[in-house]
């Protein structure tokens, strides 16, 4: 399979590139349509890594290639879902999605059709005229996913998208995401600090440690989806990852 994302020698220091390292020299290759989860505690550099891939932050050293082309800025084929509060509150669910589509040059009529299609895909048909504040946290994140898909991205970057949701909604959203991903195959990089979330979702889990941010454990999970938390393989992986994370200072 072709590499969708190649990260080579990527490093980031805060405060004018000479400050303390946030991200060590990181190397990572992600295959097309692979679902990769970056797992680690707060401040381990996983969000910084994601932002650099998105083109929202510049690295101090190293390079990121998406589809072979170096990332120079945001946009163009990189959809992103944030933790919360990133929907435009002055636009309805439908208009939020249309906005994304129109921005990549889709004519407004086609954008409307696409928005309806994506709303149906994320299970929100009937809520298209609601404003974000009228939607629950889970529904808002469904709109956010639909909006990212409206960019027709090759890669989907997700920064703790379910981190602000209660556990029940969160589990539902994980199933929903997998269902949507099964229909719209994308390369996904998903940042979380929930071990179970990583195990339920990922093709590959990368555990990160801080100062400097680096990968300390990498595990491939070839189990079919949907996965059960009682699966002995996952339980064993959970223990292994937890031991790894707990061992950190």
């Amino acid at each position: 399979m072709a590499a969708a994302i190649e990260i080579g020698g990527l490093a980031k220091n805060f405060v004018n590139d000479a400050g303390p390292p946030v991200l060590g020299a990181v190397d990572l290759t992600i295959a097309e349509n692979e679902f990769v989860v970056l797992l680690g505690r707060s401040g381990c550099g996983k969000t910084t890594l994601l932002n650099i891939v998105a083109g929202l932050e510049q690295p101090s050293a190293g390079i990121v290639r998406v589809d072979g082309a170096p990332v120079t800025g945001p946009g163009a084929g990189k959809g992103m879902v944030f933790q919360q509060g990133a929907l435009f509150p002055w636009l309805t669910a439908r208009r939020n999605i249309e906005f994304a589509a129109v921005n990549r040059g889709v004519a407004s009529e086609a954008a409307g059709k696409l928005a309806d299609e994506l709303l149906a895909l994320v299970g929100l048909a009937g809520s298209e005229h609601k404003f974000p504040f009228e939607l629950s946290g889970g529904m808002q994140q469904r709109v956010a996913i639909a909006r990212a898909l409206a960019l027709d991205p090759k890669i989907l970057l997700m920064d703790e998208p379910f981190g602000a949701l209660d556990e029940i909604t969160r589990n539902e959203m994980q199933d929903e995401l997998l269902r949507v991903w099964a229909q719209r195959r994308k390369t996904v990089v998903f940042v979380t600090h929930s071990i179970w979330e990583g195990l339920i979702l990922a093709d590959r889990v990368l555990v990160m440690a801080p100062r400097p941010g680096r990968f300390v454990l990498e595990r491939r999970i070839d189990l079919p989806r949907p996965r059960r938390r009682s699966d002995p393989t996952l339980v064993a992986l959970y223990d292994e990852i937890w031991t790894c994370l707990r061992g950190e200072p």
Partner: protein
Amino acid sequence: MKFAERFAGLIGVVLFLGLWEIAARFGWRNPAIMPAPSQAVWMALATIPPLTLIEHVAISLWRILAGFALGASAGVALGIAAGWYRPVALISRPFVEILRPIPPLAWIPIAIVWFGLGEPSKIFVIFLGTFFPVFTSATRGMASIHPSILRAARTMDVDGVRLLAKVAVPAAMPDIATGLRIGFGLGFGVLVAAELIAAGRGMGHLVMEARQLGQLGISVFGIFLIGLVNLVADQQLAAAIRRTVGRWHRF
């Protein structure tokens, strides 16, 4: 429920006016110093021709609308610019911070010299009363946009002037709307005070002139009128905000 709550508010008003009425009629017994509300209204309606009354209200409203329109548009435009472009903020901030604490009424003597006793001097002080709160709110609104909103826009390839016009300004609208309401209230207060000091017409002038003529009832009526007109105007503004920004934002 909603009706009952409104009715409760009405009880408060009626109770207040009723107590005043009783106190004035049976306590002080001197309508020249403490006219009862009913006496004030009766006196005003009997003395002032309806057209003159309408003219007082109309001229005050015209002044407030003109001053507010100028102050609000300047405040919104400059506030957005200062909240978005750092150089504009660096240049304008100290200047605004020096002028902001000056009560707009302190400008009246200067305004009269600059603009004469006519309308421009009144509009100028209303402009000052409106501009600063609107400017401050707009700047704050721009500065407190949730960073994720701007990041999300950038992932959609929106930047430059488009980012400002299509994303940042709409995102700052709740704060801007709040600023407009505060600015209107302050502008109205400044207007009446300006009319007390230097005007031949308007509601403030009505209050002042009646006092000088010893017709305190008309002054009391004028004060009621100011409160009522301000209330109605503010309700209109609030309703306009509810119909627009209020559709997507809980204030």
